């Protein structure tokens, strides 16, 4: 116990902290510029000077640690004089721009000058001029205003790990240089904006459009872009979204955001938003009234049910719709007598989670994000977290900085500078490497941990390849595998981060489970969409009811059906890709798509489109005219994330509240679904989203009794307030070829998950388009020079399925013979080039046909 006195107040402390922290914890404010709670201490601004008894000079409170018996004064004549001088020095060059500076009103410099500051400076020399940096699309730099606190630099290199800015030049002339797109590694996370205490780094998006005191409402909500589910604050003026800002310390993201979350919100106000329901008449979509559209949907669905049975109807639920939306949606589809309900979570998330839970027990993927930064070792497989779930990626980078071993299997350019080792097997041979790693670790550990008998029996008959065999099969070095195995085995706290590609492949997913078991590691399942977990929990699966209850269990099914007043069919429905196949063979006649764009987001685009065209009746409910909506018979305009209430469940399995901040005319997804439901005779008496939550809390045993108040009160982690399902264990068999690496050689086509885009939403976001405007073909410098291609050339990329003409972009982050194409831009998606095969267990589509040829155009 340490006792100190600050301003005559006695303070007791458990452990030594800095004077500034001790004061802050006790409500004593010490002015500071360069100190920031989440950044490394620097002690460079001298604003936090305090008097300490028995110390001859003033001390910086942010770097001085308390010692027992210390007596500190934070305000006095001497201190005020010192602070006034500091401010006077800053103001030598700082322009007095407050009337036009967007920071005014929330600027530390402004506040301190009001409190201590000089009314007039004594310097006669002209101020240093530094023209405002307006050539960057998202971030405006005004280096005249910079006070050299280096917070931004410490944020960028210390936390974000991008190292895109540094102090250049000296003394008076120093400035923060430079941002500017990919050339300088800026990831446009905007986290430097969050910490800049003055208006030297500001967002371009809302430049000059507000004063901080004009905000009429601040709503805490959750990011609509990915499954990390970052908490953010939406600031509103007059029913318009002014800006989205994080709040440091809030949520699992602790106030960090990525570029999508920070700069992507403008799609909300896009002029291309759907406003009226549309009905196809004479082959053209034409505006119609809500009544007419809803009646048409209900009557056509009823007709098809009567003529071809409920099984001819299928529903695709939306991964960016709320739990409430999705719950209502699956109820509707089941009410139509069909279990054909699935979603984009089928691409890897749902299947992977099923396998992990089956082998390791329920809730294994419910792991708090903060665990990553505390790990000794992090293994990444099947995706690039820095691009798919950027804030999760930042946590891995933080772990690396703290000295953790970070090992990646497969391409993960975002971790290029933050890993101890990267293994690059053939994209379909992750399993082989994992097998080799497991056997090497087992050799090292000598025995299995004991505890999970059935799993251990399974492991003993797995025929794992030895490290040498695995290395030989994937053309890697056996020593590398051995060394990494040692590092993993030696770590006391391991995190395994699993991406879509690994989750969807049952063999890889099983091996991840085994690895996690023998290392006692936490599993983090990357989630590309904001509510993939919610889709699983709400029963938007062909074989599961809400709350993760299997459809096959008759008692549960009956009970659920009874509470909805319907008979839920006993047969499992079709999974996502099976629905598409059934649509093309005529088995599925009607499809209801909510908040998804299957015609673009599913592999083998051409055939998928073909299949959707064959449907007798297609309803699409979305906020934009997507590729799928264009084919629809009825299009229903829904609301965006900031216009509705509800909940999302993130990758940590934390259920979080979404709040309505602005209202426009239109209907929430759940409301549209309920209107259709009522018209076909279902009981859906919902007046607001909370009513649905009440029903969920009644029907889903996993959410038993859960209310919005609980969620906001922090009672929101899996298993929420309910009971997880017990009888989980199920072990699929490894495929016979699980440990063989495909023999194919040469250039391999890979899916790029761009940091700056996510799909339907990001496409309509001007800011994101300005930093990443078009689809490109990314090649490593070696590959490009081998093909005689330069940056900016056009090349024709062809596979068995088709070809695309794309601009070449040389990317130094890429290793090996791989060509990356994203699937975000209309008409230029990778999925139009690849085929797939279904995994027999997870039913995820696994990309096939990666062999490509590239020709210069």
């Amino acid at each position, binding site marked *: 116990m340490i006792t100190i006195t600050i301003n005559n107040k006695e303070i007791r402390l458990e452990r030594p902290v800095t004077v500034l922290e001790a004061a802050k914890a006790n409500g004593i404010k010490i002015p500071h510029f360069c100190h920031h709670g989440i950044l490394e201490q620097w002690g460079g601004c001298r604003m936090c000077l305090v008097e300490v008894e028995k110390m001859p000079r003033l001390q910086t409170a942010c770097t001085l640690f308390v010692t027992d018996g210390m007596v500190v004064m934070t305000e006095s004549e001497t201190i005020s004089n010192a602070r006034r001088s500091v401010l006077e020095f800053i103001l030598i060059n700082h322009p*007095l721009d407050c009337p036009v500076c967007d920071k005014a009103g929330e600027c530390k410099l402004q506040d301190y000058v009001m409190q201590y500051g000089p009314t007039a400076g004594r310097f006669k020399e002209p101020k240093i001029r530094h023209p405002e940096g307006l050539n960057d699309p998202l971030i405006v730099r005004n280096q005249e205003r910079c006070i050299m606190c280096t917070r931004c630099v410490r944020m960028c290199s210390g936390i974000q790990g991008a190292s895109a800015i540094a102090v250049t030049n000296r003394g008076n002339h120093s400035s923060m240089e430079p941002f500017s797109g990919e050339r300088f590694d800026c990831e446009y996370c905007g986290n430097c904006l969050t910490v800049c205490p003055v208006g030297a780094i500001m967002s371009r998006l809302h430049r000059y459009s507000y004063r901080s005191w004009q905000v009429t409402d601040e709503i805490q909500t959750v990011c609509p872009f990915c499954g990390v589910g970052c908490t953010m604050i939406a600031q509103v003026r007059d029913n318009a979204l002014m800006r989205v800002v994080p709040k440091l310390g809030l949520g699992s993201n602790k106030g960090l955001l990525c570029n999508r979350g920070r700069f992507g919100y403008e799609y909300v106000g896009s002029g291309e938003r759907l406003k009226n329901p549309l009905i196809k008449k004479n082959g053209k979509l034409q505006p119609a009234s809500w009544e007419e559209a809803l009646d048409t949907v209900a009557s056509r669905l009823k007709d098809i049910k009567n003529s071809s049975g409920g099984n001819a109807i299928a529903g695709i639920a939306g991964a960016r719709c709320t739990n409430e939306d999705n719950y209502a949606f699956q109820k509707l589809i089941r009410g139509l007598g069909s279990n054909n309900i699935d979603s984009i979570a089928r691409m890897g998330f749902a299947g992977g989670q099923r396998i992990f839970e089956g082998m390791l027990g329920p809730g294994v993927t419910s792991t708090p994000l903060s665990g990553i930064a505390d790990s000794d070792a992090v293994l990444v497989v099947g995706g690039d977290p820095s691009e798919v779930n950027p804030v999760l990626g930042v946590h891995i980078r933080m772990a690396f900085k703290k000295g953790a071993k970070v090992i990646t299997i497969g391409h993960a350019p975002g971790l290029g500078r933050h890993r101890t080792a990267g293994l690059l097997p053939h994209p379909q041979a992750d399993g082989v490497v994992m097998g080799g790693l497991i056997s090497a670790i087992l050799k090292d550990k000598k025995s299995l941990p004991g505890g999970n008998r059935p799993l251990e029996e399974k492991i003993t008959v797995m025929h794992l390849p030895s490290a040498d065999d695995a290395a030989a099969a994937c053309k890697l070095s056996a020593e590398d595998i051995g060394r990494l195995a040692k590092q993993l085995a030696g770590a006391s706290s391991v995190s395994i981060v699993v991406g879509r590609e690994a989750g969807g492949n049952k063999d890889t997913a099983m091996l991840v489970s085994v690895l996690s078991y023998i290392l006692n590691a936490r599993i983090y399942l990357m989630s590309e969409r904001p509510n993939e977990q919610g889709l699983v929990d709400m029963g938007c699966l062909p074989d599961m009811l809400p709350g993760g209850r299997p459809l096959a269990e008759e008692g549960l099914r009956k009970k659920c059906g009874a509470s909805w007043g319907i008979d839920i069919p006993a047969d499992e429905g079709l999974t996502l890709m099976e629905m598409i196949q059934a649509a093309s063979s005529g088995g599925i006649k009607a499809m209801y798509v909510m908040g998804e764009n299957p015609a673009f987001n599913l592999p083998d685009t051409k055939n998928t489109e073909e299949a959707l065209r064959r449907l007798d009746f297609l309803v699409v409910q979305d906020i934009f005219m997507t590729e799928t909506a264009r084919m629809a018979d009825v299009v229903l305009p829904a609301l965006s994330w900031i216009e509705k209430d509800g909940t999302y469940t993130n990758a940590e399995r934390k259920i979080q509240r979404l709040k309505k901040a602005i209202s426009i005319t239109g209907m929430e997804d759940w409301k549209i679904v309920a209107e259709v439901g009522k018209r076909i005779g279902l009981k859906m008496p919902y007046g607001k989203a909370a009513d649905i939550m009440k029903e969920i809390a009644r029907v889903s045993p996993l959410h038993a009794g859960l209310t919005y108040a609980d969620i906001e009160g922090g009672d929101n982690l899996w298993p929420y307030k309910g009971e997880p399902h017990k009888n989980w264990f199920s072990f699929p068999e490894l495929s016979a070829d699980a440990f063989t690496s495909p023999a194919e050689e040469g250039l391999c086509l890979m899916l790029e998950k761009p940091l700056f885009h996510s799909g339907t939403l990001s496409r309509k976001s001007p800011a994101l388009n300005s930093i990443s405007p078009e689809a490109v073909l990314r090649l490593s410098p070696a590959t490009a020079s081998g093909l005689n291609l330069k940056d900016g050339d056009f090349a024709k990329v062809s596979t068995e399925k088709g070809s695309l003409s794309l601009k070449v972009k040389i990317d130094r982050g890429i290793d090996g013979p791989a060509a990356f194409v994203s699937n975000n831009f209309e008409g230029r998606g990778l999925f139009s080039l690849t085929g797939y095969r279904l995994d027999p267990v997870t039913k995820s589509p696994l990309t096939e046909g990666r062999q490509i040829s590239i020709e210069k155009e």
Partner: protein
Amino acid sequence: MEFKKIIKTIFFTEILKGMALTFKSMLSPAVTRQYPEEKHPAMPGFRGLHALVVDPATGKEKCIACGLCAAICPSQCIYIYSTEGPDNKKFAERYEIELTRCIYCAFCVEACPVGAIVLTEHYEYTDYSREALYMTKEKLMANWNKYMAGPKGEEYFKKFWHPTADDYRAYDGQPMFRKREG
């Protein structure tokens, strides 16, 4: 005492005094102004209808959309919507004053760092509709041109409005300043 009172009562001295005043007034010129036939000239510094100062050099408003006038306004009747102009400078896309709620305190004039909003001498703007009393940026700039442009405005700036900017030496076209020497 008694006697005086009796005299007063008998001779109606009080009434005669009053009548004397009446006659005096009857013969002196009338002070009642026959408004609206006869206009009342505003006193110097009168706080009447608002105007947005137009810079004669550019023909544009002087306002830099800082929002301070709206922030200080006690009845919160100024609405400003700013944005980035084509020259990357800040400007008020909409500058509106709800006159029906204004209390003519002139705090807005005082708060403005650049002397861009003023209260003119004009006070005759009653109307039957609220819309007519809702000032937009265009109307406010027209008010300046109509009532204050030229030497009159200059005079007013010197005598009454005195923006903070005048006390400081502006530098390189910046909106703000350093205290003048001397």
